[in-house]
């Protein structure tokens, strides 16, 4: 059964249709990539799935049950966790405190503190437990975004451009973590602009353009798809 089923979901902001009747589903254990030009509606789609905004139309099912209208923190408790494209900083908390808060979702405090330390080490932030997120480099901030997701013990993670702005060498650490997570059975949906990265990682991809899904298939099928190439290189006529 699909762990996530997005069914004809739309989001309108005034006159702008940011997400336009998008449907897709994700099987348990899969890695699905989402790509699309800037402003295509990818982040908005994540907001709709993770409960941060209500869709204007359509339905989202997690584990077979509709989750439209369910508050984000309750979805986290049910195993649906997301990261933010714009790295979220906490002014006064150390990275350890932040990740501990995430770990509290499923653990008592002392265990959560312990587990948070492990998670930080696992994503490669060992030794930086007592820095505040603001003191971290962009690469480390992105790793912290991943660590926060991991610490909630999710079954499905939505990762929004956790590798944007990193050099190809810097993507190795988050890539390894994502692979490891997936190997443990966690389902992953990731938005990524860095094509070589997502091509290597994703088993299946969907492409958004102007809010609508314009293609779906294996990475190989996607790079050969004419509509996708047009969307990226502007060789299309606006309706």
């Amino acid at each position: 059964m699909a762990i996530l089923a997005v069914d004809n979901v739309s989001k309108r902001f005034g006159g702008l249709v940011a997400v336009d009747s998008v449907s897709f589903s994700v099987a348990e254990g899969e890695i699905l990539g989402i790509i699309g030009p800037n402003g295509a509606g990818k982040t908005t789609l994540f907001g709709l799935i993770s409960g941060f905004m209500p869709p204007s139309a359509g339905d989202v099912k997690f584990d077979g049950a509709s989750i439209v209208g369910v508050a984000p923190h309750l979805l986290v408790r049910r195993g649906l966790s997301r990261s933010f494209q714009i790295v979220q900083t906490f002014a006064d908390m150390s990275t350890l405190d932040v990740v501990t808060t995430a770990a509290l979702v499923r653990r008592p405090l002392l265990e959560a503190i312990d587990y948070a330390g492990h998670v930080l080490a696992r994503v490669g932030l060992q030794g930086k437990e007592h820095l505040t997120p603001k003191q971290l480099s962009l690469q480390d901030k992105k790793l912290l975004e991943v660590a926060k997701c991991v610490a909630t013990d999710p079954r499905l993670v939505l990762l929004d451009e956790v590798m944007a702005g990193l050099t190809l060498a810097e993507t190795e650490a988050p890539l390894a973590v994502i692979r490891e997570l997936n190997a443990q059975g966690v389902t992953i949906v990731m938005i990524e602009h860095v094509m070589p990265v997502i091509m290597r990682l994703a088993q299946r991809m969907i492409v958004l353009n102007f809010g609508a899904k314009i293609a779906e298939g294996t990475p190989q099928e996607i790079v050969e798809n004419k509509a996708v190439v047009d969307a990226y290189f502007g060789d299309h006529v606006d309706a």
Partner: protein
Amino acid sequence: MRPDFYRTLLSPWPWLVLTVGAVMPLLLPNYYLHILTVTLIYAALASAWNIVGGIAGQISLAHSLFVGAGAMLSSALLVKLGVNMWLGMLAAAAVSAVIGALVSFIDYRFRLGHLSFALITLAFAEMAEIYVIGTDFLGGASGLFLPRDTGDITQFQFGGGRGAYWVMLGMTALCILVNLAILTSPLGYNLRSMRDNENAAQAIGVGLLRNKTLAMTISAVLTSIIGTIYARYLTFADPYLLASPVLTIEIVLFATVGGLGSAIGPALGAFLLAPVGEILRGQLGDKLPGLHYFIYGLVVIGVILASPGGVWSFIKSLGRRRS
């Protein structure tokens, strides 16, 4: 609770300070004991406010409402209906808890930002003052005189100066202890994450309504109880002092100077500033009214420029530099 909670409790420092505090009434003349008692009241108020304003980072200006409820309602119940003031204290605390929960719900429901939250809570406090002044049962504009304190504890009477001082010392210790307990427990983690970033907090599983309501209710109950003790201590429930938003401003100021969000900072701020204000009010109140506010203002500017995290974070940074 984190182990450092118990470590702090078992360390000699709090006990030393408490012991020194407890013998003060035996050493100090009445006037200074009065100043110290008022200081403790403000230290406890700043500490109780810190749960919402510091740890959860929501600048609540509603707190004079809770002090007012604790003071005016329990006094009215006693004076007008003969209700035992212990019961009155509990009734007022319950009313404060409900109002606090309502404020949190409004905040959550309408997703108020920090500024709107401050303004709306201020509006609540203003309305409460107007309501008290217009309500005969609550003493109206002239307030309520309480019966003389005969030291009968069953009647919420603590025997005037010394007794009230010891009660306030205990209450202040309790408020600081509650702060420490929150900071070293899951609630503290949740509140701190919300303070910094509500969306990101939700994304790591923190429920805003539950945590906001919990913080506000705990803070409101403590504040209300302090209000009851304050009125009993003054033997006069004065709405222009106890239900006035000006009171909240002082609380916020002390907490900010001392250090928002830490367990001890807000009480420390009250200890640094309240005596100065109280002495100036006593010495120069008729010649230069409001002088203490001017001095508070200067101190706040000074402290915020020197150490934006307040006096306590400055002291901590000194400690860190030495070690």
